[in-house]
């Protein structure tokens, strides 16, 4: 009997040895915006040195990611961001869960982005902006803040951003088999025709799904979208255009960019920027997915029609009376939402309190603590005046019509 008992203990020892699992975490926990998370990355010292010296490259390096008590081994890590946001001291990171382990996800996610908050001294614009989009019922990435440690060394305050990929599409569109393209800014683009050759489309619209599909399959609908939007009014009907673009969604997204004083969005200061295009499989109709809104809450005094008529696509959309009404209504609803119970001001204070200590401790950020406070102060002013100005202008447009 003693022998059986001893053998049983030996047999079941590996089971006893494993620490009891805590409550199962979900992606909602990772993106809980009321929590300042701690994320640890472990990367070989030589790889880290290379990553820092080759931060302009998209070279992947192996790493382990630790969040709470979960270690995700063998993730793929690379420097990320546009030219303006890449940095060797405080690099932004993209973390792929499945690059080295096909099919593997973490909390249902194939990848996350660790945004270095390089362009935003307030460090909360992006999170605030996505929060507004989500509250307005629009497609938005989930985000949360974290203290990032690399090899146990504090790297600074980052945001954890949900990647726009198949799991994101499944969550937001209910299916993940569609065509997704990330817009790559090359030079100011005003939504006009891009010509017949596929090369420019490949450059501007990088396929994130169906990457190996032929050009015809990927880009004919996009070409048709911009060609159609630029045709004269007497040639193209609204139905023609709606075959290639969800106009309601476009106008709503545009209105939110305008409301939030975004200077680098759909009608940005330098043309269209920071968006994904998505269309369902078997469809030619696209939707815009806003992305990287760290330059929102900038244009505090901008008119609600600034630049929206400089873009062929938005100009065409707003030329339809019902869509212009929708644009005004979205601005109005959004402005009321921001000011209702001082929601935006409260949100700014909540996030400021959440990240303040970590932001101060972040010695790698490219701005001083004073600049951080000044930027937050500007957001407070934005929250105070923007809604009223937008509502005033909307009323003026309504009255004038």
């Amino acid at each position, binding site marked *: 009997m003693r022998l059986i008992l001893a053998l049983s203990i030996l047999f079941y020892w590996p089971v006893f040895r494993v620490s009891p699992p805590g409550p199962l975490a979900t992606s909602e926990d990772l993106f809980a915006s009321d929590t300042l998370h701690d994320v640890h990355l472990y990367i070989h010292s030589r790889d880290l040195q290379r990553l820092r010296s080759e931060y302009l490259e998209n070279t992947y390096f192996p790493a*382990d990611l630790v969040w709470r008590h979960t270690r995700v081994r063998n993730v793929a890590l690379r420097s990320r961001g546009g030219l303006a946001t890449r940095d060797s001291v405080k690099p932004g990171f993209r973390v792929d869960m499945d690059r080295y382990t096909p099919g593997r996800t973490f909390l249902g996610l194939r990848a996350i982005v660790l945004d270095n908050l390089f362009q935003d001294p307030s460090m909360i614009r992006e999170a605030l902006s996505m929060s507004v989009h989500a509250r307005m019922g629009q497609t938005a990435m989930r985000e949360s803040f974290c203290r990032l440690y690399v090899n146990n060394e504090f790297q600074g305050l980052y945001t954890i951003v949900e990647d726009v990929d198949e799991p994101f599409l499944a969550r937001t569109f209910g299916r993940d088999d569609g065509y997704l393209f990330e817009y790559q800014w090359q030079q100011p683009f005003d939504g006009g025709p891009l010509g017949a050759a596929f090369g420019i489309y490949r450059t501007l619209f990088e396929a994130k799904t169906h990457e190996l599909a032929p050009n015809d399959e990927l880009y004919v609908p996009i070409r048709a979208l911009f060609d159609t939007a630029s045709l004269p009014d007497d040639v193209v009907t609204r139905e023609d255009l709606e075959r290639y673009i969800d106009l309601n969604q476009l106008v709503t997204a545009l209105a939110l960019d305008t409301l939030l004083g975004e200077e680098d969005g759909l009608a940005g200061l330098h043309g269209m920027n920071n968006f994904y295009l998505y269309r369902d499989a078997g469809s030619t109709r696209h939707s815009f997915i806003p992305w990287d809104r760290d330059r929102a809450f900038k244009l505090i005094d901008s008119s609600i029609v600034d630049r929206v008529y400089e873009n062929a696509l938005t100009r065409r959309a707003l030329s339809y009376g019902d869509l212009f009404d929708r644009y005004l209504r979205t601005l109005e609803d959004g402005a009321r939402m921001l000011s209702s119970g001082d929601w935006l001001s409260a949100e700014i204070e909540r996030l400021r309190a959440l990240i303040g200590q970590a932001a101060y401790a972040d010695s790698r950020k490219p701005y001083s603590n004073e600049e951080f406070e000044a930027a937050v102060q500007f957001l407070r002013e934005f929250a105070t005046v923007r809604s009223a100005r937008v509502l005033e202008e909307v009323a003026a447009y309504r009255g004038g019509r």
Partner: protein
Amino acid sequence: MASIQGVLTTAIACGLLSGAAYAQQAAPDLPARVKMTWDERPSIRFGRIARVDIRLTLQLDGRDSEVPFDPDESRASWARKRAGVEGVVAGLFGFQIEHDLGADGQWRDVYVNYQQFDAIQVQAGQFKLPFSREQTTSPARIDFAYRSRVAETLAPGRDRGVMVHGRVVRNRLEYELGLFEHDGNNARRSGADRVYGGRSVAARLTARPFRTVRSAARTLEVGAAGVWSDVSEGLPSLKGETPFDREFYDPDLWVLGAQRRQGVEFRWRPGPFSVKSEYIRLTTERRNQSVEDTDLSPFLADGWYVSGTWILTGERKAAGPENPRRPLPRGPGAIEAAVRFEAIAFSSSAPDKDDGEPSSSPRADVVRGNRLRALTLGVNWFPMRSVRVQFNVIRESLDDPSQGPLPRQSSFWDRVVRVQFHW
């Protein structure tokens, strides 16, 4: 410290010069007649002073496969075109010099062997490290068109070095012990990050325990071998390829530290039959290569083969079917049937862990490797001396076809016909 290359060059030069000097001394007592013979191959005899045999190997392949060929890849191609000389000088020094024919040809065996005593001989130059029965057997004499994957991939192949070897205990035991510049050309690949073994020590011991017994067991041979070297930090040169050079595993993982090859071999050739088998295991340390700069479990490649042959026309395998009893046109020549099972696998020796999901990360503890298993059926036809025609059909299966030549197909056929002329 003089390089191994320098030592070898000197050793070869000394060997040849001393042989020539001995020959000159002995010349007055020996008839200096030069004679050419055509026994098994063209051979020039300098009286009793020296013998120089001409060697030539030509192998032409016709291939077919379920895997599509690249546009620039030919179905008919030369597998080998080699020419050289081998011989003995003054009964003291054996030598062999062999080079590929063609513009991009390379030197193959280039060595001299001091062989005055059976029990202790010294060989220096470029030659195969003493490891793996099949790898050290001439390609003109192996039972299949292609060597087993394990012998071709994991055995070191040729390098420059010095080796002491000999036969003892009434030729029942053969030993080989050598020091080499690197760990052989099979383990080399171009690429800045690719690394291979540095100075290598190789040893092999083979035994024919029943050699003097008059029974079927007298041709039984067993052996064990090892090669020890160190690799610097980098990605291994080793990779998994099918016989038709289709890649099925490329280890993009960091290694550093000791590299060890261990092998055991078995061969038995009773009458017209033969059975051969080998197991080879190669481990490469990965010191300080984890994401936390700690050690990872060693990279592991291992494999085996078992093969059998039967000479249907009755020649004895140990004597070689290359000399058929009834060559064309008097008879059908010698005909041999052959079969081989083999496997080669790449992985790591990481212990099972709760979160030990295999990964292709360059710093994964549990490596996402691959395994190839193959069955080869063959017929060898020796219509006359020096000529052989081989027909091989190979069925290959991959554990992870996504890394192979047909990502959605785990098994595929290769076929090859090889025509060989060999002196």
